[in-house]
């Protein structure tokens, strides 16, 4: 372990929060929201990798890999949806989609 685990964690938390902020802030652009989620997941991966490094077990790395795979699946579906929505409404602003709400 080259640095204390705590430092890895702090970095991960910073990334995580940045990702969260990105997701919350960019309501006008669904693509940026997805990017934010990617950042958060990367942060999670960082924690896993750090943990794996700390404990010397490969489980964390496996988990990180799985997250990666899962994310790409998710992103592809999400982007397909974005394309679909854009085709219908010609916008990527999520707040434009408000047909479903309490009357």
């Amino acid at each position: 372990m080259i640095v204390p685990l705590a430092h890895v964690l702090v970095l991960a938390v910073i990334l995580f929060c940045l990702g969260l902020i990105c997701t919350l802030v960019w309501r006008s652009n669904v693509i940026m929201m997805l990017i934010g989620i990617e950042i958060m997941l990367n942060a999670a991966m960082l924690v896993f990798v750090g943990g794996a490094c700390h404990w010397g077990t490969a489980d964390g790395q496996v988990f990180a890999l799985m997250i990666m795979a899962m994310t790409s699946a998710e992103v592809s579906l999400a982007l397909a949806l974005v394309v679909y929505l854009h085709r219908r409404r010609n916008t990527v602003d999520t707040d434009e989609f408000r047909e479903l709400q309490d009357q």
Partner: protein
Amino acid sequence: METYLFYILAVVTVIGTILAITEKHPVHAIVHLVTSFFSLAAIFFLLAAPLIAMFEVIIYAGAVMVLFMFVIMMLDPGRTDQAGRPGLRQWLLPAILGVIILVSIGVLAAGYVTAPHTSSAITVREFAVTLFRKYGVAIEIISMQLLFAVVGALYLGRRRAP
């Protein structure tokens, strides 16, 4: 040496990310993000996970980001700026929430002292054994999921009569 490298990379990652999320043009944001992911991959490498580092570069910085890029290009080549960057006020609440989480976990994490664990380096072989022996079903699940991502994307993307 490696330690310094870690901190440098960490700073690069964070700065890259900050630039990415504040950038108003998505294409630029992607570029910043790729930078950030590259340095993250390097950190993975430093943390004894070369395989993950490779995947990070290949899948994330490569495939996923390119996918994003494609979509951005496809949807909105000319009017990317129109949506505009969110105003300051919109930043407020997310920032507060982010800071709360950051400070909470960050402070805990900073004070987190662990007994130095005598860890041996994780070899690719070990990784593979863990992956296939221990988490056999996981691969099954994730492969199904990838398959259905394709199915779903196809379903959504299929052009149908209005």
